């Protein structure tokens, strides 16, 4: 039986996975909006907006859940990360607020007034920067350069994120979002031409994701040595990487033969496995090397109550989320 702090840390990881699979794809939709040239551009744009519209607010809340569980269960860690990663976190916030507002303004056709679609541009730009920096933050947490046993010992080092390893994790996160979005979007339309458009994009993004996942293990020995040791030297390392490679292969093959629901399952597994691997390699630390999960947690009473609330909330919540997706994603998700 895992300890209370480990369970709480697991909840954070789980919300991050759900955020990546849902909100991440919404970011990816924005990326494709930015790279939207050539024929059918207008139709693609409409498809993306239509797919995101009813669900992005709900998808966005997973990141709030992750933050709230982090500061409730591990207040010290929240304080250290907020201090050491002040700059990228501030930029992420700017990205989140610009993107959300831009989407709302754009959906309600504000731009028609003067004929320019610059909120669309803001939306797309923020969709690029935000997931990139979220990945950078995850990478920075693994480098070992965010040191601090408590706030008093976070010494000036607020530039741990500006290193090749975190930046490459950022690139990886961004391309994963674009990849997920492209794969999901294929199933959002009946138009064979649009399907082909997004199939091509999905394959391109898959190549990029695969290249980056192959490159990162070469950067991590220098950039995140302890993390690298845990990632490559644990009993689960080989099965995990095997599963990941299998998912990538499965996705490539099913995209090639146009088995789209299978491609989607494979893509989602890939992203889940990437984050799970990150989480397992971080274990038993939240921030290497100073903040182990076990000793930086809040009181057991708090953790117990928090976990009960998360469980009870989940029981009420998942049916509601199911209803939301059932109403708006009937065809894409349930095939009719």
């Amino acid at each position: 039986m895992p300890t209370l702090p480990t369970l709480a840390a697991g909840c954070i990881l789980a919300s991050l996975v759900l955020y990546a699979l849902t909100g991440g794809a919404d970011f990816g939709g924005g990326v494709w909006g930015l790279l939207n040239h050539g024929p059918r551009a207008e139709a693609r744009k409409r498809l993306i907006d239509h797919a995101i519209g009813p669900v992005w607010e709900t998808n966005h809340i997973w990141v709030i859940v992750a933050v709230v569980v982090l500061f409730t269960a591990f207040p010290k860690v929240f304080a250290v990360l907020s201090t050491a990663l002040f700059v990228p976190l501030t930029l992420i916030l700017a990205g989140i607020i610009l993107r959300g507002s831009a989407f709302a303004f754009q959906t309600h056709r504000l731009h028609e007034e003067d004929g320019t679609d610059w909120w669309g541009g803001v939306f797309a730009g923020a969709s690029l920067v935000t997931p990139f920096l979220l990945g950078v933050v995850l990478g920075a947490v693994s480098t070992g350069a965010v040191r601090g046993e408590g706030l008093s010992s976070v010494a000036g080092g607020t530039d741990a994120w500006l290193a090749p390893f975190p930046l490459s994790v950022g690139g990886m996160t961004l391309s994963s979002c674009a990849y997920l979005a492209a794969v999901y979007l294929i199933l959002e339309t009946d138009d064979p031409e649009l399907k082909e458009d997004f199939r091509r994009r999905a394959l391109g993004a898959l190549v990029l994701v695969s290249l980056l996942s192959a490159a990162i293990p070469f950067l991590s020995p220098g950039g995140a040595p302890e993390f690298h040791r845990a990632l490559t030297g644990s009993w689960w390392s080989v099965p995990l990487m095997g599963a990941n490679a299998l998912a990538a292969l499965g996705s490539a093959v099913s995209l090639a033969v146009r088995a789209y629901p299978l491609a989607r399952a494979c893509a989602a597994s890939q992203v889940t496995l990437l984050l799970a691997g990150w989480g397992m390699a971080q274990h038993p630390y939240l921030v290497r090397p100073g903040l182990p999960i076990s000793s930086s947690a809040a009181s057991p009473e708090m953790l117990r109550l928090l976990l009960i609330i998360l469980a009870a909330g989940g029981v009420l919540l998942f049916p509601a989320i199911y209803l939301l997706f059932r109403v708006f994603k009937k065809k894409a998700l349930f095939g009719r």
Partner: protein
Amino acid sequence: MTELVLARAQMAMLFAFHILFAVAGIGMPVLMVIAEGAHLRTGKPVYAELARRWGRGTAVLFAVGAVSGTVLSFELGLLWPRFMEFAGGVIGLPFALEGFAFFTEAIFLGIYVYGWEKVSPRLHLAAGCLVALGGILSGVFVVSANAWMNSPAGFTLIAGRPANVSPLAVMANPAWKTETIHMTLAAFAASGFAVAGIHAFRLLREPRNGFHRVALGIALSVGGVAAVLQPISGDLSARFVARNQPVKLAAMEGQFPTQRGAPLRIGGLPDAAEETTRYALEIPRGLSLLAFHDADAEVVGLSAFPRDERPNPVPVHLAFQVMVACGIALAAVGAAGAILGWKRRERLFSRPFLCAVVACGPLGLLAVEAGWVVTELGRQPWVIHKVMRTSDAVTPVGGLALPFAFFTLIYLVLGVFAARLLRKELGASPFFPAGEGDSPTAPGEV
């Protein structure tokens, strides 16, 4: 020191922005649900049109509220890491519950706004009700976290750290009830009057448009009821503050000496150096009477506290005056509306009354901002009353001027565009002949 001021200014700016949208997120769903309920009962298309439009407005405001709220939850750590290190594991419960309230709101607002043609009318109305419930609950949860900062409870301090945390006692802290009731009423009063003000403005131009008549009726009912109750709730809050944070009460009232039978001051400018409040209209023994319901009760003044434990009375006193003045105006107009509309609905649409409603439109929101200035600045220099000073909570990261300027700029642009969007939405308002839905027996009236 200047970094502290910058951090406080940034926090205040972020809250002042978020709270406007949060208020809309609490009040607007109730309005739209009432309109839709009226449509289901009467079948009149004017109500359906109104519910759709209010739903769209809610969606835009909700989106901005949601992202500005996300900013806040991160900024708690970015600006006040020491506060969060101390308090995160103590006040996590209301924040975690709030997360679920947000989920409820977001999920069902998605269904509501995009689902008119996709779900049954019953389910659609139920979704609207859940949005309203989620809005109210998220306000209640987050304000109980704030109430804990005013009246910390549910833990013991051991060597400067919280121990023996009892999360339920934290949430049910002494200030919990008065503050959440007051805030929830404030949200209804502010959004009800803001919406009523807009529709009254349109009615001055097109007096026969039934669409705006119906809208005014609903918004004014909700806002008016809340506004009439608000002074009662405010009195409870003030009496709680008098017992729990006497120094805040003294700052609110500009009361320097400790005094039996203290006067109530209307207006006036506190002078902290001279320890006196000038230019006020004084009602003898009024303060003792209001704060303790006893004209001879002793009121502790600011002078009884060490200088470094006093809030700055100037903004606190002025903001309190502004809030109470707005509260009295709203309650008066709300009551007048009830009396005028009692027998003949038509009298609500007389020009003088419409002008009064237009004038009250911004007052609720103004009172909300002023009320938060009272609460937050009145608590200074503490971030957690008598437990942690704001100056001990601030981040060690320097250069806070940059993020402050950055967010101010972003929020200015967003504010301007949100306002333009809403104006555009209203500019294209539909026409329904008067009489449709505003007969004395029509549902939707309270």
